[in-house]
């Protein structure tokens, strides 16, 4: 069951099962970040809903300074990336490190405390944005206090992850572990460099925009993509019950992503030296190499096999498909003049966040939650998957198509107010999309909350009956 896709299994089946149970038991602390992440996800979609409604009905909540468009949009985005995706991503990566390394989680106490502080950091950040104390930089809007707490708790989580990685009993590394290891370093490096050069000791003039664009590109291409790929590389072979198609392709995909992923993020017309724009656009094209290598590798791994749990594999399958699509959209956005500044850019970001990163994490959470709580039920797995897939297709699709319309009108001589009014149909459509996403988000949260409640009830029963679950000694389990 554990790591069967990466290496031959040598331990006897019974003790292996016990070890898996023990690993999962040690990872129970991860239910804190996972549950909080799902709460932030719901909060993010509420902000996204308000943002979306405001686009076509500007009068809604217009008199509330905290909920003006310029506040709700970054609040929705940051709640998603820092509250949900990063937090859930770290939790899932910790679990993956345990499972792939056949070891128990190191630093359960610090992880619990750091997770609490992470959420305090995000909360301060979101309140800062809503009250107008933003830094004014894309995806780095959190005021100083929020980001400092966030970074402090990340340091603890990162160290625990590295210690867990070191404590592994399986020497051979699996591709998912490469991505996890890389992501664990990329995120703090990117975040501190950007905060340092933008907020603590700001660079001058348009260099701020260059550093900001470099960070945003890294945040998406290195951090969020690595989390997604770690999840996909683990779950796709596991759930389809097949070994990875090609390790060589995985190596190619990983190193080419590492080599060019940090470049990019610049597009034509920016007030920057021309070589930066050219290099950025070239990197966007070269990114097709890791993209194709990874997508083909994982797609061929799935093959034509019928998965034992089609509904859960569907999450990862769709995420992989959307990953391929987003690469095509990114190239499209880089080369069609004016398109990057229209709704298309917004659509591309949301598509990557929900469609690629989100779906992979949702699938992983659906897999993890019953195993960590030890409660079995499959409620809402299909419902939330369908809602989120349809929701993101409508939500991002409306922005993407609307953006193309907007670009066509922008390059003509149509007055600007008319340009925007012609996209209203798409903006209304996006509200329907975000509503579906919200239902999907609520369904996941409801499922995990239900599992937690059930688990608490069993625990209470056990305590009352004084029938503590049998604890295994590590040596016994390792045998």
């Amino acid at each position: 069951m554990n790591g069967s896709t990466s290496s031959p299994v040598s331990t006897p089946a019974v003790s292996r099962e016990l070890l898996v149970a023990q690993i999962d038991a040690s990872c129970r602390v991860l239910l804190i970040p996972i549950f909080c992440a799902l709460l932030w996800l719901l909060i993010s979609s509420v902000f996204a809903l308000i943002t979306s409604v405001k686009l076509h009905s500007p009068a809604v909540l217009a008199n509330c300074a905290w909920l003006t468009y310029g506040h709700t949009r970054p609040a929705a985005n940051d709640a998603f990336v820092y509250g949900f995706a990063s937090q859930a991503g770290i939790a899932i990566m910790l679990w993956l490190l345990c499972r792939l390394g056949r070891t128990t989680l190191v630093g359960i106490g610090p992880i619990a405390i750091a997770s609490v502080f992470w959420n305090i950091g995000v909360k301060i950040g979101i309140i800062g944005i809503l009250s107008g104390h933003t830094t004014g930089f894309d995806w780095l809007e959190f005021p100083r206090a929020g980001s400092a707490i966030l970074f402090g708790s990340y340091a603890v989580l990162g160290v625990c992850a590295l210690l867990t990685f070191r404590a592994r009993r399986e020497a051979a590394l699996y591709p998912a572990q490469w991505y996890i290891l890389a992501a664990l370093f990329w995120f703090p490096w990117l975040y501190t460099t950007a905060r340092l050069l933008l907020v603590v000791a700001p660079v001058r003039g348009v260099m701020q925009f260059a550093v900001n664009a470099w960070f945003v590109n890294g945040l998406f291409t290195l951090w969020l993509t690595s989390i997604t790929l770690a999840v996909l590389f683990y779950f796709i072979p596991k759930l389809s019950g097949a070994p990875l198609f090609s390790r060589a392709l995985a190596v190619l995909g990983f190193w080419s992503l590492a080599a060019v992923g940090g470049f990019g993020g610049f597009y034509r017309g920016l007030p920057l030296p021309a070589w930066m724009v050219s290099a950025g656009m070239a990197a966007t094209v070269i990114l097709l190499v890791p993209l194709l290598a990874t997508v083909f590798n994982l797609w061929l791994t799935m093959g034509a096999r019928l998965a034992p749990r089609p509904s859960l594999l569907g999450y990862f399958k769709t995420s992989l498909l959307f990953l391929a699509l987003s690469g095509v959209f990114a190239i499209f956005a880089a080369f069609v003049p004016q398109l990057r500044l229209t709704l298309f850019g917004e659509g591309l970001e949301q598509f990557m966040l929900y469609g690629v990163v989100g779906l992979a994490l949702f699938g992983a959470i659906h897999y993890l939650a019953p195993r960590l709580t030890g409660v079995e039920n499959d409620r809402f797995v299909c419902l939330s998957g369908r809602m989120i897939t349809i929701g993101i297709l409508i939500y991002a699709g409306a922005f993407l198509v609307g953006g193309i319309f907007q670009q066509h009108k922008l390059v003509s001589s149509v007055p600007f107010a008319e340009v925007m009014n012609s996209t209203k149909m798409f903006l209304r459509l996006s509200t329907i999309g975000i509503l579906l996403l919200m239902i999907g988000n609520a369904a996941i949260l409801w499922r995990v909350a239900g599992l937690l409640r059930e688990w608490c009830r069993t625990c209470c029963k056990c305590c009352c009956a004084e029938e503590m679950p049998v604890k295994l000694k590590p040596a016994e389990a390792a045998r």
Partner: protein
Amino acid sequence: MNHGPLIFLGVLATFVASWWGFVFAPQLQIGSQQTAQTDTGIYPTRRAGVALQGQEVYVANGCVHCHSQQVRQEGYTFDVVLASVGTNAAKVGDLLRQIAPAVNADEIVAKVLAKAPQPILTNVVQAVAEEVQKSLKNVGASAQFVFIPLGVDMARGWGPRRTVAADYLYDYPVQVGNSRLGPDLSHIGARMPDANWHLLHLYDPRTVVPGSIMPAYRYLFETRRIGKQPSPEALKLSGKFAPKDGYEVVPTAEALQLAAYLQSLRVDTALFEAPLAQFPSVPSGTNAPVATNAAAANTPNP
């Protein structure tokens, strides 16, 4: 790939490469840019105090999420302007008939003789413009060519030239922006110079731009009972936007600061790296001063 340290080193190397390429190298190139002396003085200068406070309001309200501040150039072309005819008007007229059959050569020569420079060719590539300039020089006339930046943004009137690094030198945080749900604001101060227009627009965009999807910023205004005298600062609102009888809408300090900031946004200083699209043409029939200096300044150094 079974060694953690190997992956760490590779990841470190690629990250440093990306940092070196896109953060450190541009910092060396443009990070220490200084102000420049232009025809109209030192550029850029710091914003005035109120406008600077207004920038904080702009940032705090997240205006950047809908408004970019970047004018983009997608190409360029040249116009050729006949500045003086010299001594041999007949020969110049003959030459004009050859190189610019579309224009009335005699009329142009007469006007230029009356000290009114005339465009003779529009929308030509640099090589053609240079050749025409040379052949006119051979017959004693002098011609200048004007650099015309082209692009959707210029066509929309969002700015007379593209924005360059120098334009943002004193901004913090720089609000270049990534979205154009609203029009570009690089040049809004020159496009809409009236503070009152900005205040009305902020109070409710629909008062001045019907059908606008911009949210109203009424929380930057105070609706209060009129005292002994109406406030001179009160907005002149009518119809459905007007407050109740006996009440007036007065902008808060923040609204005034924001309006001052918006008025301060303009990119109409000609720079070496970004000449202005301004055409040195003079309305026919007038004897206006010749804009030869401006035209010369606009001609890029070959």
